[in-house]
């Protein structure tokens, strides 16, 4: 009975959500192996080998999988699937992309975005944009699972697992990576930030986001956005918090000029403290906010910036 955790990383650094997956794996009380696929990803493998609870790291280091496709990752997993009962990955775009492919090939159901491990076969997961929590029991011998990072504490810390090299098994005949265009930011990554300040349609333009950025820099916060702000072209779409964007659960979430549609709430309502700044006192966001300030954001944000010194 062994768990295979598939690492999400960018060849340099481990995506923080991977450590939350190790936290979820620890709840299953089985040996944990971690699969790392990439190019020049030795440091990633070492970091994961040093994480608590990891018994072995399997490293596929190959120039052909610098940006592994779903086809490559699933073929690699299937080549060693006999040895494992659980397959776990973070519910990032990386994990969501390949895990259902693995599940289908194994002929099992995938359990998406679990937020709680009840026992070895039973898991909780949100449905209907987080408006209901389903408890599901798997009847499959092998379990393919994606993990919602915000549901579990991260495990890093003290381990000393060996790194074993594996050969790349996948062929690239049918799909290939062409290019990527990443949004550059000095601020913390949205899904792992302790504080997030998000803007909505009320920001009126992309230029006005500098009002949020100034405050974010003072708080060491990440900047997010509602779908309305993204669709209006104010900020790139990887800023989006919501059912169709990123799911976050920071200590403090500040929603500025965001009405609080179901879609957006699904992405942030598990935050510890929610602050809403909105001039419409009827806005649904106030029904989930711990602290609400009914005020024009163009007046409130400079004042807030000032007050934070």
């Amino acid at each position, binding site marked *: 009975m062994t768990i295979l955790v598939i690492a999400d990383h960018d060849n340099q650094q481990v995506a923080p959500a991977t450590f939350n997956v190790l936290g979820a794996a620890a709840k299953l009380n089985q040996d944990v192996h971690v699969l790392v696929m990439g190019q020049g990803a030795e440091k990633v493998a070492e970091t994961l080998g040093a994480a608590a609870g990891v018994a072995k790291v399997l490293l596929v280091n190959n120039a052909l999988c610098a940006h592994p496709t779903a086809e490559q990752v699933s073929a690699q997993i299937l080549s060693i699937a006999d040895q494992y009962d659980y397959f776990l990955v973070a519910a990032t775009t990386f994990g969501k992309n390949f895990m259902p492919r693995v599940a289908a090939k194994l002929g099992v*159901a995938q359990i998406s975005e679990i937020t709680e491990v009840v026992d070895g076969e039973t898991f909780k997961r949100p449905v*209907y944009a987080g408006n209901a929590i*389903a408890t599901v029991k798997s*009847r499959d011998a092998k379990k393919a699972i994606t993990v919602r990072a915000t549901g579990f504490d991260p495990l890093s810390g003290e381990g000393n697992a060996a790194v074993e090299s594996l050969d790349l098994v996948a062929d690239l005949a049918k799909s290939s*990576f062409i290019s990527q*265009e*990443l949004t550059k930011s000095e601020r913390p990554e949205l899904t792992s930030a302790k504080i997030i300040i998000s803007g909505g349609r009320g920001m009126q333009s992309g230029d006005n986001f500098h009002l949020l950025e100034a405050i974010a820099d003072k708080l060491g916060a990440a900047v997010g956005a509602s779908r309305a702000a993204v669709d209006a072209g104010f900020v790139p779409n*990887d800023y989006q918090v919501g059912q*169709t964007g990123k799911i976050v659960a920071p200590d403090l979430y500040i929603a500025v000029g965001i009405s609080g549609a179901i879609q957006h709430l699904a992405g942030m309502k598990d935050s510890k403290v929610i602050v809403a700044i909105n001039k419409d006192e009827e806005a649904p966001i106030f029904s989930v906010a711990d*602290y609400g300030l009914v005020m024009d954001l163009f007046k409130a944000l400079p004042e807030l910036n000032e007050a934070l010194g």
Partner: protein
Amino acid sequence: MKILVAVKRVIDANVKVRVKADNSGVETANVKLSMNPFCEIAVEEAVRLKEKGVATEVIAVSIGNTQSQETLRTAMALGADRGILVETDQNLESLAVAQVLKTLVEAEQVDLVILGKQSIDSDNNQTGQMLAALLDWPQGTFASKVDVADGHVTVMREVDGGLETIKLQLPAVVTTDLRLNEPRFASLPNIMKAKRKPLDIKPIADTGVDITPHLEILSVAPPATRQAGIKVESVAQLVEKLRNEAKVI
């Protein structure tokens, strides 16, 4: 080239769902149902590919109860040429849906399947990937741009850090993200025309797919409710509360 688009009938995105008192599921009686928003985007993209002359025929398919015909008529009003309903009263899991779709893909000899990236009820985000796996076709998930040329489809994908472009050999499976396109509205003449387009209905038993669930739903419960907090009067008061009461800054 033929394109198959899979559409699902779900509780309308603007409805606030209510969990049933016996925790067996959510209330669907007397609730507005619509086409899943990601599926609408899939239909729109297929129709645009037909308008560009890339596709010759767009087939919309749905798996569900008899009312799902309405969802297929909507797809046809948006421009799909014909519809196929695989009829069942049971809620199918993603794997079974993928298996049923595979039988249709093979029977219809399509070159491209477009699906939404996820349905807004089960929030699974699985079916497209599973279908690609079962067919052994390449996949382009979370697409925000799709170009078909020379036997390949180039897909720009929305990934966590930004965008990624991949190239797939046809036949392939593509799943749509919200920003792929802006779906059109069906005009009244097109809604009337859609009523005369062919719609085949076949029972799920004819597909030979085993639809026994792999997952048992033990309960569906409302999430922990969050109470509205307090309204503060000024920015100064807000900062004071965050510093001294919530202690988060």
